[in-house]
């Protein structure tokens, strides 16, 4: 599952029919009602504020199968972390190079720890 990279100019109006909900990054997603939601928009007020990574992870762990979209200060150098934490799409800040972002997503062959995409860590996969 590869992250869908969205640029600002194609972000608007594309999926108006979708039942989406935008959350601030201090919302407790453990108790959030997910019923009927097709997309959850999580926010990075600054790219260095990493709360939404944990929100995305917990939403996936709860079994949320819809789209989790990153908004805000979204830079290409954090896309891989977003994908691994459970995001399925990300709207880039408008100065970002989407093509380069695509390349960065495949830079590493594998990782040590499990994540939202591959739950088992490397040691469990090898053994």
């Amino acid at each position, binding site marked *: 599952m590869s992250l869908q990279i969205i640029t600002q100019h194609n972000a608007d109006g594309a999926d108006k029919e979708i039942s989406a909900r935008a959350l601030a990054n*201090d919302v*407790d997603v*453990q108790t959030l009602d997910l019923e009927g939601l097709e997309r959850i928009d999580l926010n990075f007020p600054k*790219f*260095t*504020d*990493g*709360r939404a*990574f*944990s*929100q995305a*992870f*917990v939403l996936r*762990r709860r079994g949320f199968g819809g789209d989790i979209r990153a908004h805000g200060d979204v*830079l290409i*150098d*954090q896309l*891989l*972390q*977003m*994908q*691994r*934490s459970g995001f399925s799409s990300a709207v880039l800040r408008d100065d970002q*190079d989407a093509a*380069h972002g695509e390349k*960065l997503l495949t*830079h*590493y*062959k*594998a*990782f*040590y*720890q*499990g*994540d939202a995409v591959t*739950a*088992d*860590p*490397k*040691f*469990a996969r090898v*053994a």
Partner: protein
Amino acid sequence: MYQYTAFDSEFVKARAAQYRDQLTRNLAGKLADDDFRPLRLQNGWYVQRYAPMLRVAVPYGELNSAQLRVLAQIARDYDTPSAELIARAQSTQDKIGGIDAPKLTTNYGHFTTRQNVQFNWIPLDKSADVMELLASVNLHGIQTSGNCIRNITSDERAGIAVDEDVDPRPYAEVLRQWSTLHPEFAYLPRKFKIAITGATEDRAAIAWHDVGLRVLRNDEGEVGFQVLVGGGMGRTPITGTVIREFLPWNQIINYLEAVVRVYNGWGRRDNIYKARIKILVKAEGQRYFDEVEAEYERILESGAHHTIPQVELDRVSACFVMPPVDVVPDDAQEKAEQALLAQAKADKEFTRWLQQNVTSHQNPGLRVVTLSFKRLGQAPGDATADQLATAADLADKFSSGEVRVNHDQNLVLPWVRIDQLADLYQAARAAGFARANVHLLTDMIACPGGDYCALANARSLPIAAAITERYQDLDELFDLGEIDLHISGCINSCGHHHSGHIGILGVDKDGQEWYQVTLGGSDGSFLSGPAKAGKVVGPSFAAAEVVDVVEAVLDVYRDKREGHETFARTLNRVGFDVFKAAANSARNTTARAA
């Protein structure tokens, strides 16, 4: 020591390549400085007072000689400012005045309290080259800075200590792997430091860490962790609180995932001085603990994916290859011991070195030897390119090619044969590493301070130099006994002043350097007692007064001690006020201000 797998090596190389791409974009103007900063920090690259600083990760302090030689090469070939830069830096430093200061130095490495190695003059445009060079020997700067899980530290004698219950290194390595490029925990509220020990004596200051781990056996012989959380220095020194008395060893990752996830959500992000987990633990207390336990339960219910299988622990443990040290036969051991005794009788300095810089080992035919990097003329923990290369040679010749960087900013040789101690002593002496002052007053901890660091309020190194100079007499140092003297150039506390028996903190008032003195701090070792922050001795002192303050305090100790009582015990028994009065009596220039 740990033998890197092909996966580990490839991973480090991929990281170096990723960094080169980021640097290239930054230098081409495609990645703004503000956006690049956290990326370079998580590779160990700061930009300091005059030049970038690189912090190389040394996982739990272990280095092999090939790695040490690459560090020497970096010191020699890259740690070189332009003539113009060094001239400008020196002239700026010269204007500070107040106290005689050593000149700025270049082409050297610096050992830190967190067992890492720093360089101070590498130009940023060479940084990707340096990362590739480091990767060639499996070294890197991953997560040595930034608001992420930092390089994990441990006991300098891990795996060899006579008081060790469980070897902490396999667990440290498993945790290193887990925390490396963790996608969810790269942008925490603040830095997150983990220390782990498996010994009775705490040589890793675990209570002073965001998470402190003690791996031990319970009464049933099962291995588990005592988990401390919420320790840290800085502006608000707090020691860690036990959150779990005994966590089964195979649950440590699952549990820490809960600890860090709750911190990521709850930790403060509005104030950098209140963002460490210690503030959260202090503010929320039981509520934080309850949430960690609840999150841990959810992790278990959702599959407990990071439960460590026995085969994985065995695999990692097997990576810590015991060096092929020839076993010294019992009779040879005895002979060697007698020879040492005879030699020691004739050579007082050698006796002192054996007493202070050499300690016992799990293998009775071996000894653990500390090479002292605390001596006149060089800053604490500094090693020139040549000295790094010489240390590598000593490691090859006497310690199966391994050294450890320790918390006190020295190097430890972990595998020295008892019958080679005399030869090692001669070689270490020739290299200038045999000063018999380990754990004594001049074996002080000091941060780089205002000579190099952009954060510092005052210089640490001239103070360290002045104290070192005054206390050169080994008779006197031995008479004073084991004392922790710690110096930080600012409240970030990289020089661990809070935990020093005598702590010195640089402060800035009206653009001038001043020094606050604390007494009675502890890192949590047997010598020092339960971890605690020292108490402040009144208003800060002028730079020129600091050595006199130290002397006054030590004079009180000599006057008040009973028998062989240590400084820390005497201070505890006699009380802070007597020592405080002595310190204040050394005021000269600050008398009016106080």
